[in-house]
């Protein structure tokens, strides 16, 4: 993992402070406190859904904190000839800005973005999370959902930020409404020979061949319906484990002095029980299987809190955004 260099005494200072009773952190937070999270949706005008998120921004300065920009772009993909999948697909990619990791070489930066891409793509592109309204024409055309995230600055806890930004961007995404267009032969018109063949064979053919050949957009491009399964997109909590304790939302310095990190991505569907969508262990430290069980249970609790807080903020942002759109309309 990318980490800043830290002297041995700094590491030991942070570790002893964390494990002392009561635990003390460099900025006075308790172990389970998050830094303030700033969030704004709809920041990229040309994307179908976008968000800017910052964890731990200092109040007046422009800089500081882990900053992530996420944007969703929907593209029509051909299932037969292109690389589309029937019913739509989700593709995630994460790129890290060199400004976020000035000490890394370009190769190391690529590796890091690849690592993050893998974690996000394997979790979010999983078939169990695929929204049901990404199909356009059965077996012919579908939406390809491309979720791109950029890490603009890293001051710790980048995975939580990425998953939160991903969830917010997908929440914000509007899928254009499509209507299927069919060609119908004119009544009484000349029927071509090859159509006749199909007609004759269809008595034996049990397959449902859709007659739809193309689609049209009844709305403007920026209108549409929200993605189905909005509540299922997971949030991630990182448990930073300094045995025997764990803590949340590590700063870069704390991350560098933590031997083991457990990522848990949990989904909280409205009607079903919470499910664990992904988990990763990062770092050279060790942990026993029996401990993992307890950690996952705790992680579920913290993720639930994070989920509820994010949900509330997203609803508030939706209201604010609609307000802004109305204001602009009035001005016009």
């Amino acid at each position, binding site marked *: 993992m990318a980490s800043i260099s830290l*002297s*041995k005494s700094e590491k*030991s200072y942070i570790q002893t402070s964390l494990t002392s009773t009561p635990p003390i952190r*460099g900025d006075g937070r308790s172990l389970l406190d*998050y830094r*303030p999270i700033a969030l704004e949706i709809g920041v990229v005008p040309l994307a179908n859904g976008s968000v*800017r998120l910052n964890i731990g921004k200092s109040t*007046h*300065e422009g800089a500081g904190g882990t900053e992530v920009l996420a944007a969703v772009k929907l593209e029509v993909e051909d299932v037969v000839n292109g690389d589309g999948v029937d019913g739509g697909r989700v593709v995630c990619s994460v790129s890290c800005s060199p400004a976020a990791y000035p000490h890394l070489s370009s190769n190391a930066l690529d590796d890091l973005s690849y690592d993050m891409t893998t974690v996000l793509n394997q979790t979010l592109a999983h078939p169990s999370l695929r929204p049901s309204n990404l199909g356009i024409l059965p077996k012919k055309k579908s939406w390809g959902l491309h979720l791109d995230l950029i890490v603009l600055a890293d001051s710790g806890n980048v995975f939580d930020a990425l998953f939160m930004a991903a969830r917010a961007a997908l929440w914000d995404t509007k899928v254009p409404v499509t209507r299927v267009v069919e060609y119908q032969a004119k009544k009484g018109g000349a029927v071509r020979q090859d159509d006749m063949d199909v007609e004759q064979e269809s008595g034996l053919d049990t397959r449902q061949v859709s007659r739809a050949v193309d689609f049209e957009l009844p709305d403007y491009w920026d209108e549409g319906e929200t993605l189905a399964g909005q509540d299922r997109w997971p949030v991630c909590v990182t448990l930073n484990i300094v045995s025997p304790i764990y803590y949340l939302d590590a700063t870069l310095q704390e991350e560098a002095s933590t031997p083991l990190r457990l990522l848990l991505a949990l989904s909280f569907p409205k009607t079903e029980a919470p499910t664990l969508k992904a988990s990763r262990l990062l770092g050279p430290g060790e942990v026993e299987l029996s401990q993992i069980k307890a950690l996952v249970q705790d992680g579920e609790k913290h993720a639930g809190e994070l989920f509820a807080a994010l949900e509330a903020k997203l609803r508030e942002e939706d209201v604010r955004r609609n307000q802004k759109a109305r204001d602009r309309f009035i001005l016009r």
Partner: protein
Amino acid sequence: MITFTSFPSPPQTTAGHGRTKHHPAVEEDVAMDLDEDELSPGGSRLTCPGDSITSSQAFMRGHGTYVENEEVIASVAGTVERVNKLVTVRAIRTRYNPEVGDLVVGRITEVQPRRWKVDANSRQDAVLMLSSVNLPGGVQRRKLESDELQMRTFFEEGDLLVAEVQAFFSDGAMSLHTRSLKYGKLRNGQLVTIPPILVRRLKSHFITLPCGVDLILGLNGYIWISKHVKENDQEGEEGFDAEAVYSNQNDDIDDATRNAISRVANIIRVLAAHFVPLTDTILLEAYEWVMDQEIGTREILLEETSDFFVAAMTGSRD
């Protein structure tokens, strides 16, 4: 506990597109005709990028300026400085510009033959020669080949140290030295980074706060906050204790001191975020004020508290 906030809305740029806007303090200066008196070294003048400073026929352009249409124009936001006919702009947000004799806090980035490379928030890494450190066995000791082989036992990558700028190399990189008992490896604390311009030159950059916390204000914007070490406990000249000087082991630090260190760190972060220059007096006042108001360490960083706090600090100085 999780709190969500919004990004501050960008300033409304509805009016005043036609002309350049200036800070009220400099509005009159700008409106005046530019003449030589105005660029006198006494009065400071702020610039924005693109502000015209003076005529290029009477003055020479220096750092932070460029010439267009026979005018010297600022390319950075900062203060105008003039030496004879040379006009420069000293940028507000910049890397550290070293000067000989400055006290800096740095971090070792590389170990090379007979030298360490040190990150000191400058444009280039600083250099610490093996010949400019105190080695175990006395100040007068000669450096042996065996010392070159065990350089990592003194400083290794990531180690923090406090040093003084000794000289410059021909390429502009600074050369450091730690040939004093005050200088050397740092332990028992944590580092806070602030913009270098906020650290003023003081009589002493080693500050002891009454809460049992030592501060080292590096002129490069790196500030080391650590547990207080008593004067007579510092390693003496004769019994120069290599193990203590180059140790990586922290002393026992009690919880009260750890809390105080965190509190001081947050105070410095807030002052830096509000762009208040740090001096020993303001730090002392700030710490007392925070203790009087019984503000928790975490609460200092919250927006309302920090605004209130900085208002109290800057108000009391006037």
